[in-house]
């Protein structure tokens, strides 16, 4: 079991090296998808293996460890990457050995981040995601992608550097408590003995730094730029799963904070970040003129919601956060793939330039509209159920005032997002219908998008067979709130 933990890290690295060596050859385009499928398969095996025993698997002297939560995150990375990269196969303009190699390394870094049982290695892996995606964000020619990449690297690195400062403080605190360690398993065990003042400083810095990578306001300003300028599959990966990997790290550190400081501190911090993210996203989605930026702001909204879920804590809210993570990742990856196709066909990312798309190109606009409805939280998609569960859990935890605010902001975000979606797909005007019709998407090209939407719709039904896995994932967080 232990050796399996290396697979999601080493296989993508090997495939990336292969892609870089054989660049130019057409088969290298498939390698990143193979990496994604390897991660997905390993994650599923780990998930079944970690159901019975907590911390079932470890490798490299405990440096890598998989409990149910880790395994679930590995599955999420694999599933979202499969959708984004499968969709990329039929999207023109991203065929390059270096591109594939960097995507493979990016996947390996994300897998390492969730598998590492060491806050230092976790940090190195998260920073490696910034490094591998820097050139992917600036991949397209022109000034805007370069500008986005610059902001992304500077803000991302500074944010993550602050998280490292927090990790250093936590390490010093554990040293003062007599057992220097960066392992979160050992830190959780040690937490009640940590000096509360120093631990508070460490936890706050770590969470604030990681929140930059998770795209939470007010450290979100790089996100709309980077996610709108990157090539479609990279946007899908970043929005769909990289943000969630950062939130996973917040969850781990949050548990240490809860045990060392009581439940109020981390909860207050995450509630504030989450509500602010919801508010920023809701306000900016209303006035958005660019559909890729619209999707990016929607990611900020959903990350805010998940942060609020983590703040609430407890089995119901944590389960809802995990299902939301997977559902949002799948839908967002599918939508970015579809947005990339709309851009390729229409030549513009402005909502005003693509109005009335449903009449002209139902093959482009139909899945986009369906995915948009899923993001808005309409049933039968999973996000409907998770959002209801989050609010109910918050209410039960006595957070009725923040929950009322969440509901109001969700309503506002709903109105803003649906207004833009309707303009894009159903709105009148746009180009005339007698324009020469471009080639329709083949059924194969639509398959990954539709598969993602079907799974997202079915997640609620899957919740019953999944409940064992989710239950152990929640238990492995040992949330006390």
């Amino acid at each position, binding site marked *: 079991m232990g050796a399996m933990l290396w697979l999601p890290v080493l296989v993508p690295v090997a495939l990336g090296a292969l892609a870089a060596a054989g660049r130019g050859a057409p088969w290298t385009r498939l390698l990143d998808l193979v990496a994604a499928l390897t991660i997905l398969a390993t994650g599923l095996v780990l998930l079944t293996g970690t159901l019975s025993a907590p911390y079932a698997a470890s490798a490299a002297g405990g440096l890598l460890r998989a409990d149910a939560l880790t395994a679930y995150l590995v599955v999420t990375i694999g599933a979202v990457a499969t959708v984004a990269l499968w969709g990329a196969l039929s999207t023109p303009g991203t065929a390059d050995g270096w591109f594939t190699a960097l995507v493979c390394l990016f996947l390996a870094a994300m897998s390492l981040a969730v598998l590492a049982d*060491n806050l*230092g*290695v976790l*940090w*190195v892996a998260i*920073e*490696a995601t*910034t*490094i591998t995606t*820097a*050139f992917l964000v*600036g991949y397209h020619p*022109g*000034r*805007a992608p*370069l*500008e*986005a*990449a*610059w*902001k992304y*690297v*500077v803000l991302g*690195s*500074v944010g993550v*550097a*602050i998280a*490292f*400062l927090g*990790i*250093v*403080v936590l*390490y*010093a*605190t554990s*040293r*003062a408590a007599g057992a*220097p360690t*960066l392992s979160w398993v050992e830190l959780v065990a040690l937490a009640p003995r940590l*000096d509360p*003042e*120093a631990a*508070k*400083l460490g936890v706050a810095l770590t969470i604030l730094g990681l929140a930059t990578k998770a795209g939470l306001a007010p450290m979100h300003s790089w996100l*709309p*730029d980077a996610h*709108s*300028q990157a090539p479609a599959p990279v946007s899908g990966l970043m929005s769909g799963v990289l943000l969630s990997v950062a939130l996973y790290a917040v969850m781990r550190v949050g548990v240490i904070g809860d045990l060392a400081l009581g439940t109020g501190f981390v909860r207050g911090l995450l509630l504030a970040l989450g509500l602010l993210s919801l508010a920023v996203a809701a306000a*900016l989605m209303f*006035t*958005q003129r660019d559909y890729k*930026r619209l999707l990016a702001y929607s990611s900020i909204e959903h990350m805010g919601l998940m942060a609020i879920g983590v703040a609430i804590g407890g089995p119901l809210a944590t389960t809802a956060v995990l299902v939301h993570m997977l559902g949002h990742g799948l839908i967002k990856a599918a939508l970015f793939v579809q947005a990339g196709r709309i851009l390729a066909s229409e030549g513009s990312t402005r909502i005003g330039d693509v109005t009335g798309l449903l009449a002209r190109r139902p093959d482009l606009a139909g899945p986009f509209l369906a995915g948009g409805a899923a993001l808005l939280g309409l049933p039968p998609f999973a996000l409907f159920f998770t959002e209801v569960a989050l609010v109910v859990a918050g209410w039960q935890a006595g957070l009725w005032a923040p929950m009322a605010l969440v509901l109001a902001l969700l309503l506002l975000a709903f109105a803003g997002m649906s207004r833009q979606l309707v303009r894009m797909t159903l709105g009148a005007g746009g180009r005339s219908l007698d324009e020469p019709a471009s080639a329709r998407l083949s059924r194969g090209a639509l398959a990954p998008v539709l598969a993602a939407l079907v799974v997202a719709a079915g997640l609620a039904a899957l919740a019953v067979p999944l409940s064992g896995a989710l239950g152990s994932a929640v238990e492995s967080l040992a949330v006390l709130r």
Partner: protein
Amino acid sequence: MTETLFAQTVAAATGLLLLTAILQVWRRSTEASARLLALQGLALAVLVGAIGLADGAFELVAVAGLVLALKAVALPWALTRTIARSGNRGEDSPRVNPVSGLLAAAALATLAYAVSRPLLALDSGPATHAVPAGLTLVLVGFLVLLTRHQAVSQVIGFLVLDNGIATVAFLTAGGVPLVVELGVLLDVVLVVFILRILSARLELAHGEVDLHELRELRD
């Protein structure tokens, strides 16, 4: 290394770290900033070496050599070359004037002392008492990042911030585990490398890189 010599070395090194950070705010020329950064890297290497010798941890002495090679030589040299190549030795006019900058730096140093009180309570060695200096570097790095226009100055701000974090790491804990330490060093080099390529490409796209002209992407 005797106790007093150790305490004196730590005090001198942290003093030099603080001084180079404050001067960073004051000086406008990017070339001078790069030289200050080299001096700061040297101070950091001395600090790490002293802690290594005092603890008898010889891997830390090796890390000190690496810090010296990277932060005092390689990175400042790369920055100087970038500045020379862009042909712009001129001033980077910050958004705040030098006097307000110095006042802000003093305020940040006070803040750093206030924030690091819980850390000082953990341990009372001479090394721990220098922790506020590290935090001051972090905050001054932020200040440089926020107030400078040129791409090179932003990289310098990031490096000052990183030096501050490294200082705190070595002072509070004698350095985090070696794997992580090496990962962090490699990471800094890679980030600077990426930023250098990006700024060169930006320069190709539209001449000198004034980051205040990066306004194409906004809502």
